[in-house]
C-alpha cells in the first residue's frame, strides 16, 4: 500500500492529510486527536488592499461624527439620506459605534451573522507613509524602528519555512505549493523565504485549469555543470522556478479541475480570485496561505464623485467590489460545506489622513481598521473608535494611537487559528529590537471562537512531512506477519525513537519509546483481526509507517 492510501484510510482528520503534526504525544492520544482534529486543514486567505485604504470612510467613528464631518467637508459619508452610513451595531457603547460606508451592506450582513470582526486602529510603530516601504514592512513583519526596519524576508515565508521544513520547492514531500498568489505579477515579499525559493506559486493572469498542460515540459534539460558565478546563480534560480512551475502546476490544475463552486460570484476581479481559492480548496489543494488583492486604494483624488455623492467614485467602487466579493466567497464556502477551513483577513499598507486634501481625496495616513471574516471567529468590534482630536496641524492630521499592532493580530491567527507553537510564531514574527519578546503575549484572545480556537495541547511545532512507507527489502523488518498478540521489529541498526501502533481510525493501541536498540517488541494483546498501522519516529523526526495484518 502506498503512503497516500495509508493516509486516506486513516479517518481522523489530523491524520487524513499527507502531513502529520509533529507533536507526537498529542497526536497519539485519542483524546487529543479529537480536539486537534482539522487544524492542519485550515487555511488563511489574505486580502491585500493596495494603495492604503481610507479607514475613516470605511468605518466612520459615530461618536465623533461632527468632528469627522468638519475634517472632511466634501468626502464625508453623510449621516442622512440615501448615501448615509450604515450603523454597524447600534447595540455597542457609543464610543465604539461605527458607520459603515453605504456600499458595505454585505459587511453588515456578515457582521450580523457573527462572521466578521472589525479590528480598530491597527498599525505599527513609526508608521512609514511610503507605499513601498510600508508594504514591505507589513509583509516582512517589520516596523519603522531600529532593527525592525528591514527584517529581510516575509513573515509568512518564515512561518511556512519553519512549519514545513524542507518542503518549499520539494513537491515529492508535499504536492501543493505552500502558498498561492492569485494576482499581481510581482511575487509578494510575504512569501520570500530566508532559506528557500518556491514557497509560493504565482497564478496571476493564468488559466488555472490549463496551467499544467501549458507549463508541463516547458524548458529543456537542466544545466549540469552550473558555473560558480552570478550567472550560475541565476541559472540555478531559473531552473528552480521552471521545476516548481512544472511540478506544482499539476496539483494546482488537478485541484481546480476536480473542485467546483456551489454559487455564482459577482463579475469582479477580486471575486474571481476568491472563487478560484474556494474551488482549489474544494478540489483538495493543500496550500496553507492564499494571497488575493485589489488595487486602487491610493485615493488622492476622485475618491468620491462630487455630483453623485459618496456612493459613486473610486472608493465606493473598490469597497463595493471588496464587500460583494467577500460575501459571495463566504456564501460559496458555506454552500460547499468547507467554511470551517477558512479565515480571511484584509490588510492595507496604511490608512489615510483624517483631513481631506480638498481634491475629493485623502493623503497617506497611519492607523486603519482590519476586517476578519470566517465561521470560526467571534465577530464583533475589537477596540474602540479612533480619537480624531489627535489629528492636528502639528502632526499633519494623523491618528497617533496604536490600538493593535498588526503583528499581535497575525500572532493570534498563527497560533489560535493555524495552531503554530509559540516557538514558531516567534520565528515568524520577531521584534528584532527585543528578540526575547513574543507577540503571542498580547494575542487578541477573543478573535477566534472557543469552538475553533486551537488548544495549547495541539500547538504544532512542525508539520512533519518526512513520512516514509517501509517498503519490502527495507532494513526495518517486522515479524511475524500476520501477527497475533505481538510483533517484533528489527531496525537493522541501533535505533532511538518511538514506536506506536494505531487502528484504522487512528486510535492509539500501544506506544513504546526505544533507546539505542536493534529491535523492539511490541505487545498489543488481543485485538480484532484486521489491518493496523505501526509508526516509527526516529530522533530526527523522520517517520516510517508499516501496515500490518493481525489475526
Amino acid at each position, binding site marked *: 500500500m502506498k503512503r497516500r492510501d495509508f493516509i486516506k484510510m486513516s479517518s481522523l482528520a489530523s491524520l487524513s492529510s499527507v502531513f502529520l503534526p509533529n507533536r507526537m504525544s498529542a497526536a497519539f492520544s485519542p483524546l487529543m486527536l479529537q480536539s486537534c482534529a482539522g487544524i492542519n486543514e485550515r487555511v488563511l486567505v489574505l486580502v491585500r488592499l493596495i494603495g492604503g485604504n481610507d479607514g475613516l470612510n470605511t468605518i466612520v467613528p459615530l461618536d465623533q461624527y461632527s468632528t469627522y464631518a468638519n475634517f472632511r467637508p466634501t468626502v464625508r459619508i453623510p449621516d442622512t439620506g440615501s448615501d448615509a452610513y450604515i450603523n454597524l451595531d447600534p447595540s455597542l457603547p457609543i464610543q465604539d459605534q461605527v458607520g459603515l460606508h453605504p456600499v458595505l451592506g454585505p459587511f453588515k450582513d456578515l457582521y450580523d451573522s457573527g462572521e466578521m470582526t472589525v479590528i480598530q486602529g491597527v498599525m505599527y510603530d513609526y508608521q512609514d507613509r511610503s507605499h513601498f516601504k510600508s508594504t514591505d514592512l507589513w509583509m516582512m513583519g517589520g516596523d519603522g524602528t531600529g532593527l525592525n526596519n528591514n527584517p529581510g524576508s516575509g513573515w509568512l515565508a518564515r512561518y511556512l519555512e519553519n512549519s514545513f521544513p524542507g518542503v518549499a520547492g520539494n513537491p515529492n514531500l508535499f504536492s501543493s505549493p505552500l502558498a498561492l498568489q492569485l494576482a499581481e505579477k510581482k511575487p509578494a515579499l510575504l512569501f520570500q523565504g530566508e532559506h528557500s525559493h518556491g514557497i509560493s506559486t504565482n497564478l496571476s493572469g493564468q488559466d488555472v485549469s490549463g496551467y499544467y498542460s501549458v507549463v508541463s515540459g516547458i524548458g529543456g534539460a537542466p544545466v549540469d555543470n552550473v558555473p560558480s*558565478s552570478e550567472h550560475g546563480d*541565476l541559472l540555478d534560480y531559473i531552473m528552480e522556478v521552471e521545476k516548481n512551475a512544472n511540478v506544482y502546476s499539476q496539483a494546482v490544475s488537478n485541484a481546480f479541475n476536480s473542485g467546483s463552486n456551489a454559487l455564482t460570484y459577482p463579475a469582479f476581479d477580486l471575486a474571481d480570485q476568491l472563487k478560484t481559492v474556494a474551488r482549489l480548496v474544494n478540489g483538495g489543494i493543500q496550500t496553507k496561505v492564499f494571497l488575493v488583492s485589489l488595487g486602487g486604494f491610493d485615493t488622492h483624488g476622485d475618491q468620491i464623485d462630487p455630483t453623485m455623492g459618496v456612493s459613486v467614485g473610486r472608493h465606493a467602487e473598490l469597497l463595493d467590489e471588496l464587500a460583494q466579493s467577500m460575501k459571495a466567497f463566504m456564501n460559496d464556502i458555506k454552500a460547499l460545506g468547507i467554511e470551517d477551513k477558512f479565515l480571511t483577513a484584509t490588510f492595507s499598507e496604511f490608512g489615510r489622513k483624517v483631513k481631506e486634501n480638498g481634491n475629493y*481625496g485623502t493623503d497617506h495616513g497611519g492607523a486603519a481598521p482590519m476586517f476578519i471574516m470566517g465561521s470560526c471567529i467571534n465577530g464583533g468590534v475589537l477596540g474602540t473608535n479612533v480619537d480624531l482630536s489627535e489629528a492636528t496641524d502639528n502632526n499633519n492630521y494623523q491618528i497617533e494611537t496604536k490600538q493593535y499592532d498588526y503583528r499581535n493580530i497575525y500572532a493570534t491567527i498563527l497560533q489560535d487559528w493555524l495552531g503554530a507553537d509559540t516557538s514558531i510564531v516567534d520565528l515568524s514574527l520577531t521584534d528584532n529590537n527585543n528578540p526575547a519578546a513574543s507577540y503571542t503575549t498580547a494575542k487578541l484572545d477573543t478573535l477566534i471562537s472557543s469552538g475553533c480556537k486551537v488548544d495549547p495541547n495541539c500547538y504544532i511545532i512542525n508539520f512533519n512531512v518526512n513520512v516514509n512507507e517501509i517498503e519490502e527489502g527495507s532494513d526495518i523488518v517486522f515479524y511475524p506477519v500476520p501477527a497475533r498478540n505481538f510483533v517484533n521489529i528489527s531496525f537493522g541498526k541501533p535505533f532511538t525513537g518511538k514506536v506506536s501502533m494505531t487502528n484504522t481510525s487512528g486510535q492509539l493501541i500501544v506506544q513504546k519509546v526505544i533507546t539505542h536498540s536493534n529491535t523492539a517488541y511490541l505487545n498489543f494483546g488481543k485485538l480484532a483481526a484486521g489491518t493496523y498501522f505501526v509508526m516509527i519516529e526516529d530522533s530526527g523526526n523522520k517517520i516510517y509507517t508499516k501496515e500490518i495484518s493481525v489475526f
Partner: protein
Amino acid sequence: MASINPLNQVLGQRFSKHLLRRASFRFSKQDIDNFTVLSVDAAVEQLFLSVADPVPEPQDPQDAVPFWINNIPLVNINSDGRKKSYVKGAWMYNAMSSATIKHKLILFLFNQFTVSTGTGKSTEFFDYLQLLDFYSFGSMKDLALKVTYNSLMLKYLDNNTNSDNNPNENYAREFLELFTIGKGPQVAPGNYTNYTEEDIVEAAKVLTGIRNDSSRSVFDPLTGLPQGYINFNKHDIYDKTFSAAFQNTTITGATTIQDVEQEIIDFIAMIFDQTATATYICRKLYHFFVGDTISTEVENDIIAPLSATLIQYNYNLVPCVKQLLKSEHFYDMDDSDSTDEIIGGMIKSPLQLLTELTTLFEVPVPDPVTDAYNFYHLYSHNFLMAKYFPGAGMPLFEPNSVAGYPAYYQDPYYSKYWFDSSTIISRYKLLSSFIIGRNQLGGFTSLIGLTFDVVDCVQTNSLFTDPENPSALVSDMITYMLPEGVDSDRFSYFYDDIFLDGMMPYNWTVAWNDFLTTQDDTVVRPRLEQIFTFLVNSPEFQTY
C-alpha cells in the same frame, strides 16, 4: 576592489555582446561583429552618437487623419487606448532600429519618473516620451523641472489638484521618495534620513498651483513640447521651510507667477544640491545597467565616484553612464576572476528578450509605413501590448505602481522578478507565437501580423556561416545567443540530443542539401524549430 577605471582594450566578441545587450535594444550579428573590433572607448562613444528615429511620429492606419499626434487638443481622439499601443509600438520599432543607448536611457528615465499610460490621453503619453527623449542625453535635474510641468504627470500624481488651501501631497511625496533623493532609513518617527514628513508637507506647498493644459496650446520654449501652466491664485504664497536634511532651507513665498517658477527652480536645486540625490540616482543606474547586488565595495568604489561625476556635470547622464560602461568593473575586469560577476548576471526583461530575439534572428517585423495595419494593430496592439508584455510582467510603459518595474528597484531580487511561475508561459511561448504567426500565450490564437520562418532565417541570416554543417550551425547559435560559452556536456545536449536527435551529422548535411535542391523542408524545418526553441528557452538565454 571594484574599479571604475577605464578598461583600455579592444572589446572582443564577449564584451561586444555584453555591451550591446546592456546598453542598447539592438543585438544583430552585424552590430556584434562591428563592435567586436572596436576599443571599449570607441564602442561606448558610438552608442552615444545621435541617430534619427526611422519612425519619428506614429500613425493610426485605421484613422482617417493619418498623422494625429502633433499638437492636436485632447478632445475627440478616437480609439485612444489603441493609439497608446501605437505610440509604444513605434517607440519599440525605433529602439530596435539602431545600436544606440538612447532608448535604454529613455526607459531608465521613464522608470525613474514613472507615469502610467492608464492615465491621460495617447497624445499626452507621446508628449511624455518626447520629453524623455529630449533629455535622454541631458540633465536629470532639468528633466525633473520639466516633468513637474508635464500634463500627464500632473494628472497621474494629482498635482493638478494641489492648491494653497487644499494641498495634495501625492506628487511631493513621490518626487522626493522615488524621483530624486530617495528614502533613507527611518531614524525617528517621520524622519527618513534624506527628508522628513514635514518636508513633504512643505514640498507640496511649493508645488501648489500647477495645472495641466488640455488644449495642448501652452508650449515649453526649450523643448517645444506642450506643458501645463501656473495658476497663481492656487499657489501657496507663504514661505516654506525645510528640515535639517535640507540645511533648514527656506524658500520665499512668491508674489508673482515668475516667483512661483523660481520657487520650483529653487526647490529642485535644493534637492539636487544634496549628495544623497546623486547617490540614489547612481544606484538606480547601477541596477539598470550593471547588476542586482550593490556590495559595500561597489558602493565605495563605483557608486561614489559615479555620483561625483554626476554632480560635476550638473546631473547630465552622459558622462556618468559613459564612465560606468567604460569601466573595468562593467566588464568584470577589476579582479583576478573575470568570469564570476556581471556578465550573464541579470535576468532579461521581457522587452530585452523580445528585442534580442527580433534583432538577432531578423524576425520580419511588419514595416510601420508600408504595412501599417499589421505593424500597429496586429503586432503592436493586439499581440505585444495586449498579450506578451502584460503576460510577461512588463506591461509596457504601464507599470502597476509609481515606483516603476519592481525588477529595477525591489530588494532583494531585482531582475529575478522578471522570471516566475506567472511569467514563464509568455516568455517561453513567444518564439512559438512568432513561428506559428499566431498568439500562443493564452486566450484567442489571433494573428500577430508576422510569421517567423526558421528555415528562411538559417538560409539568409549571416549568423549562420555554414548551414549544411550541423556542428557549425548549433555552434554559431550558441556563440551569439548565450552570454557565456558552454561546456562540452552542454554543447552535446543542444547538438546531439536536441538537434541531431539520433541522426548522424552527415544526415543533416544531406537533408539540408536536399532541401536546397527540392525546396521540400519537411525534414529540416521541425529540427530547426526544435533547436531554436530549446536555445531561446534555455536558462542561459534568459540571462544577459
